[in-house]
């Protein structure tokens, strides 16, 4: 049986103060294993992004614990947690958040540069990762010269460049047409998912559900149900 990558138990998140206090995530427990691609789905405002932020070390839960490979990440200092995210978690943001003033290769190299890798070595490694996502010929272009799908792949290359064992993708198909979105998810499933990696995707795009191992549906801050995907069928 695959080992547990992420284990969240009884996490809650409140925003604001009374009388306008919002209970965004309500006593949610969550588990994701290595070799597994887990979707968190649900309507806008259901708390899925808040939960994703808490399990990836971005947003401190109001209560509950989050363990990644057994380590309670919210017991780490802020610097240690930043270091943990840098080395262990790869992020693909919904709006990509690429730097328009850097080349595509330099964008991809950022996690390595933050790990104090020498600039040229980091960019060379980034170019190898761009090759993986099929964009080696775009390495010296600024991201604004790329299409939406290409920018998404650049963001994926940046997320995997430091070989993280957890990948977090936030609405990866939100800005893409149907075919491009499916191609991206197909690529992620086939090329990036390994026995030593866990991928968590937040989406409400039903067209890509077929690539998931498990789908957790959130409603009103709670996990409403968990279903096995068509892949297991």
């Amino acid at each position, binding site marked *: 049986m695959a080992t547990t990558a992420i284990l969240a138990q009884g996490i809650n998140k409140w925003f604001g103060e009374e009388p306008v206090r919002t209970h965004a995530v309500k006593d949610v427990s969550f588990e994701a294993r290595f070799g597994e691609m887990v979707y968190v789905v649900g309507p806008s405002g259901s708390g899925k992004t808040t939960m994703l932020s808490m399990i990836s070390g*971005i*947003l401190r839960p109001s209560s509950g614990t989050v363990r990644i490979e057994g380590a309670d990440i919210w017991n780490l200092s802020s610097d240690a947690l930043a270091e943990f995210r840098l080395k262990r978690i790869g992020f693909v*943001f919904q*709006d990509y958040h690429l730097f328009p003033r850097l080349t595509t290769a330099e964008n991809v190299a*950022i996690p390595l540069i933050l790990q104090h*890798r020498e600039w040229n070595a980091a960019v060379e490694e980034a170019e190898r990762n761009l090759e993986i996502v099929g964009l080696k010929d775009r390495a010296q272009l600024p991201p604004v010269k790329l299409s939406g799908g290409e920018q998404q792949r650049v963001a994926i290359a940046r997320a995997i460049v430091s070989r993280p064992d957890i990948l977090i993708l*936030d609405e990866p198909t939100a800005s893409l047409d149907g075919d491009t979105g499916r191609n991206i998810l197909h690529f992620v499933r086939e090329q990036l998912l390994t026995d030593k990696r866990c991928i968590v995707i937040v989406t409400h795009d039903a067209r890509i559900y077929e690539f998931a191992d498990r789908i957790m549906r959130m409603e009103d801050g709670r996990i409403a149900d968990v279903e096995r995907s068509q892949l297991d069928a």
Partner: protein
Amino acid sequence: MPGILQIAYKLLINDRAKFAALLVGITFAVFLMIEMTSLFAGILNRSSSTVINIGASVWVMDPAVQTVANTIPLPDYVLDEVRSVPGVKYAVPLYSGGALLKLRDGTYQAANVVGLDDTSLFGRPQMLAGNIKDIFAENAFIAIKDAEFYKLENPRIGTEFELNDHRGVIVGIARVASSALFGVPTLYTTYSRALQYIPNSRFTMSYLLVEPKSPADVAVIKARVTAAGYLALTRDEFVQKISDFYMYKTGIGTNMMLMTLISFIVGLSISGQTFYTFILENIDKFGALKAIGAKGQELIAMILFQATFVALTGYGLGVGLCATLIWIARSHLPDYAAMITFANLATAFVMVVIIAAISSYVGVRKVLRIEPFDIFRG
């Protein structure tokens, strides 16, 4: 250069419009600050030109004297009193006053006349043409070739003029270290001829120039002169007294300081606003860096580096621009009084550092407040 700073550098210079706006802001502010303070330094330097040019170690004067041009004649016994002080090596009188010359074409021209002690010619200028001994010739004057020289119709040796119905003859052309402040040419002659040509009050000596036997004797000389009811100042003290007068009692200093402050505010406004906009435009990128794993101190280092880089580059450009324009102005406007001093440069540098510090403080506050969670929320 560490990679994080290289990212900061590329983010900055590749945003050419913002980078140019930041540089223009800082450069303009530095240019204005140095120009203003240089003008003031030039005015102060010229206001003390007689003190600088004569070069005496100690000057004895009436205590009411505020500038070197504002002379209050001293009675002759003060010369005897000062010469009797044990620490005095020698003491000589100096005449300094204004006169109205009638030039060859019939026009009148105001001039400074400096009368040097007849026996020693202490404070003599550096001769460019003629011999200093010719100053003892009949009606002899030496013209100083400074920015105002042309106002004497560019005289040569032998050029004649009238001074109070006396005939004057230029017997030499000389130069001095510093031009006068008020835009009038300068003539040197002997002390006795100056008294003979220019109407005087009962007392005649403008200043006593004193050379102490040793630096330790200065205090004794000053004490004796004070006891006699007069004032003895070293050259530096006299220059400072003149500077203080122009700085605090004429409004020139206040105006210059206000202009410098306005330059600082203009620079701070342009640079601070542009840098803030630059940070705001990149705030989501900084948030993304934070989410990926950049530490707070790394983001602070990026912003400090960007602000410092802009500040130092703008400072260099501002200094260069100011030096170039002063050089051009001096070569076309002889009366242009501007002088870049280390104090000007240091003042502008400190102000640029303050601009960079305030700009980066605002940026750092903004960046540290951004939550990576906001990046997820979009």
